[in-house]
């Protein structure tokens, strides 16, 4: 953990991120409503509500598409990492926009004094056996509940309380929510509107997210297969000079977690690739002032022993390293967290 880190903190980067995000959302929704109003001026209050309902709905879909693209984009190209820094705020705002969409839908029926009709759509049990005609609002409501669960547990308190492993597993429910949203739109408004923009938006958005996730997963398969073990069970990483200075090479034993082998000048050390905060990819970070710095949120650990600098107490698993005939090797059997294991390269090997 960085010495500047506090659990709840508004720093400049977060403020800029949130300001840009809010401005983009306001601009999109305002622009959508203005264009819709101009193309077909609403003749009644329900008509006006319908425009806002659609504006917030489209915005929520696009935001969810972007949120789900940030992870694979950052894995494919580190230039997208700044987007990942404050992704949780993006996710919470997405829930808020989706909730406002749902509120406008409720308001629409309220103004028409037709709330029983809305309720009947959720309880039309025979319709649940159909495909076309399925109560699509139920799908949207289910997605909204998932987004609510994620937004309400997005704070670091829940991350620590649940542990990064469970928290991450829980938050992977967003994929299910996205699938529900796509079908919600496909069985809903796409069945009533002739415009090709709706199927195009769904196909392009969902297609892009799927392609990015499949591509990122395919590229990472090679590392996850694991490196071949030497006769004594150690893994060859490469000559010290091939490990980028103040950077790392990532390796793994077959079936094991990834190991990040760092070089800081002539010091070589190996840590787990998993940050203690959110299991971020430490090996894609840099060594700053002797500390490995996570590329996601800046948590820091000393290279020599995997301990966060005082006053913080996080400790990472370390691994033994050695230089054998000019090649750095790592023992994939983990040492207890916080065990000093870094070495100084013999002269002339870097």
């Amino acid at each position: 953990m960085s010495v500047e880190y506090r659990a709840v903190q508004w720093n400049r980067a977060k403020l800029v991120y949130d300001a840009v995000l809010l401005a983009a959302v306001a601009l999109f929704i305002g622009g959508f409503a203005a264009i819709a109003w101009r193309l077909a001026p609403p003749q009644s209050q329900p008509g006006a509500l319908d425009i806002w309902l659609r504006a917030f709905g489209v915005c929520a879909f696009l935001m969810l598409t972007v949120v789900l693209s940030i992870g694979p984009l950052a894995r494919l190209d580190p230039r997208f990492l700044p987007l990942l820094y404050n992704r949780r705020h993006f996710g919470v705002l997405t829930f808020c926009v989706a909730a406002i969409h749902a509120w406008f839908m409720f308001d629409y029926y309220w103004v028409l004094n037709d709330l029983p009709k809305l309720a009947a759509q959720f309880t039309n049990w025979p319709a649940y056996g159909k495909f076309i005609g399925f109560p699509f609002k139920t799908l949207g409501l289910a997605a909204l509940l998932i987004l609510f669960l994620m937004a309400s547990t997005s704070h670091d308190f829940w991350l620590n309380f649940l542990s990064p492993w469970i928290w991450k597993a829980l938050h992977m429910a967003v994929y299910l929510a996205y699938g529900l949203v796509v079908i919600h739109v496909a069985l809903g408004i796409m069945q009533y509107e002739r415009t090709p923009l709706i199927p195009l938006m769904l196909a392009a958005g969902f297609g892009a997210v799927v392609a990015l996730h499949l591509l990122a997963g395919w590229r990472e398969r090679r590392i996850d297969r694991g490196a071949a073990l030497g006769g004594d069970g150690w893994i060859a990483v490469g000559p010290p000079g091939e490990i980028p200075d103040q950077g790392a090479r990532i390796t793994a034993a077959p079936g094991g977690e990834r190991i990040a082998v760092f070089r800081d000048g002539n010091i070589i050390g190996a840590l787990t690739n998993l940050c203690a905060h959110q299991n971020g990819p430490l090996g894609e970070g840099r060594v700053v002032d002797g500390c490995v710095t996570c590329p996601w949120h800046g948590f820091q650990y000393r290279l020599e022993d995997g301990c966060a600098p005082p006053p913080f107490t996080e400790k990472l698993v370390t691994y033994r390293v050695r230089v054998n005939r000019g090649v750095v090797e790592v023992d994939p059997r983990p040492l207890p967290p916080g065990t000093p294991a870094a070495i100084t390269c013999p002269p002339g090997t870097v």
Partner: protein
Amino acid sequence: MRRAHRLVHRAVWPFLALAVGLGFALALFFRTLPPA
């Protein structure tokens, strides 16, 4: 991410792409638009 999470990712996305893609394609194919 942990290895287990990456494996889940790799298993989930092809399945999700197939299921949702099929649902979307069928919804598009069978849609009966109201008269203009």
